[in-house]
């Protein structure tokens, strides 16, 4: 199998798209509900754990170039590394299924109300399967082109909404102390900042160059900054109380400004674009992880069954919307943070120990 390469600039696009992802619509109402008018602080504080996680991944990438996280976890930890790899594959799979569910829910609730949800699941998964089969190079290049339009749309929406911003809504600062803000930071730390652990399955495609650390970090920071803009827009245009009650807060924001209905289409395109990037990356990470784990030479035959599994699971995963909200708000942080931050930290410490205890061993192996 020929090795796929992406440039570091393409990796920047992937990272930006992934971090914004489904968070663009789901994070604002969640953090505003927790922290009220101070929610805009959360993305900035959550940059720190995100940057630490990304540094761990980049450092591991440097120690084991050309290996994915599933492969080097086996090389670092031996047989238990197989189990750690399985956890990563499970995480990519679970995250992908949840993202697919979010995409379908949004289309189902807002636009195609009469279409059976199963049709949407099948079409979106089939489309993504096509993209994943073509490989990461094609995906990265296509996303790079589309992202330019999306950023223009985003700027148009932001600029229009800011005409109707009431900055009084941002005061008083820290009315209820630091705790609600800390809780919303935990929320953003687990979703979306920590989810970049999935990039352990993509990072090994990046061609070696001097700026390799700079572009991914810029992607993460830019993604979180776009989330900040989205949160700030919701707080200033709506009030925090209204914003916290809406399900898709940015959509309500756009609808509430005069003439904003014209922009709803742009908003929907932005949301769909970002979430489908996130879904494709999770899908790709799942398929690639499964093929590396099983030691299969080519991941392409696994694309379709993996997609079927994800689609079925995303229908099956929750019984009701209440279930979903509770899981996303309370269970997800305590479940995901150990996986997202614990696994790379464990692998990094293991790799360092290996390097210091047996300096010659690694070199002969690679």
């Amino acid at each position: 199998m020929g090795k796929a390469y992406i440039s570091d600039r393409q990796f920047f696009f992937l990272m930006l798209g992934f971090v914004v992802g489904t968070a663009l619509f789901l994070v604002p109402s969640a953090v505003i509900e927790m922290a009220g008018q101070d929610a805009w602080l959360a993305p900035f504080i959550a940059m720190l754990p995100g940057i630490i996680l990304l540094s761990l991944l980049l450092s591991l990438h440097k120690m084991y170039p050309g290996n994915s996280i599933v492969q080097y976890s086996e090389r670092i930890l031996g047989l238990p590394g197989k189990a750690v790899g399985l956890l990563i594959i499970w995480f990519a799979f679970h995250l992908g299924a949840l993202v697919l569910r979010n995409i379908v829910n949004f289309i189902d609730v807002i636009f195609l109300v009469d279409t059976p949800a199963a049709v949407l699941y099948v079409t979106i998964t089939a489309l993504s399967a096509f993209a994943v089969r073509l490989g990461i190079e094609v995906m990265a290049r296509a996303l790079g082109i589309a992202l330019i339009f999306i950023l223009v749309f985003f700027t148009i929406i932001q600029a229009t909404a800011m005409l109707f911003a009431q900055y009084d809504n941002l005061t008083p600062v820290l009315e209820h102390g630091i705790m609600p803000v800390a809780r919303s930071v935990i929320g953003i730390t687990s979703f979306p900042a920590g989810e970049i652990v999935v990039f352990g399955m993509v990072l090994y495609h990046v061609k070696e160059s001097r700026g390799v650390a700079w572009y991914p970090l810029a992607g993460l920071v830019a993604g979180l900054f776009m989330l900040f803009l989205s949160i700030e827009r919701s707080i200033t245009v709506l009030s925090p109380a209204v914003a916290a009650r809406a399900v898709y807060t940015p959509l309500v924001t756009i609808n509430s400004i005069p003439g904003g209905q014209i922009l709803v289409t742009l908003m929907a395109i932005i949301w769909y674009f970002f979430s489908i990037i996130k879904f494709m990356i999770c899908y790709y990470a799942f398929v690639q992880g499964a093929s590396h784990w099983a030691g299969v030479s080519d991941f392409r035959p696994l694309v379709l069954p993996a997609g079927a599994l994800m689609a079925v699971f995303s229908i099956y995963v929750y019984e009701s919307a209440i279930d979903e909200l509770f899981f996303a708000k309370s269970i997800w942080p305590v479940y995901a943070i150990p996986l997202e931050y614990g696994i790379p930290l464990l692998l990094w410490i293991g790799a360092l120990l290996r390097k210091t205890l047996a300096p010659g061993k690694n070199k002969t192996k690679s």
Partner: protein
Amino acid sequence: MVTKFLLITLAYAIIIILEVPRLVAQKRWKDLGAFWLLLAPAMIYGYGMVFDLKLPNPTDFLEAVFKPAAMKMESFFGTAK
């Protein structure tokens, strides 16, 4: 239920027809094993939904395991409802 059954069978049949003959012809048995390892749970859960079977849901398991910790976190931050 009959249409659902037929449609889902059609979907799985398409997946199998697209991939399996090539893998068998090239004698890539490991790939074929991984293929079935992914498709089998998808088929079980797919048909389980058609026939309304009660299959174990991983979400229930995760909720049972992580709920105490989640409640502790919410009460620590004073955001418990």
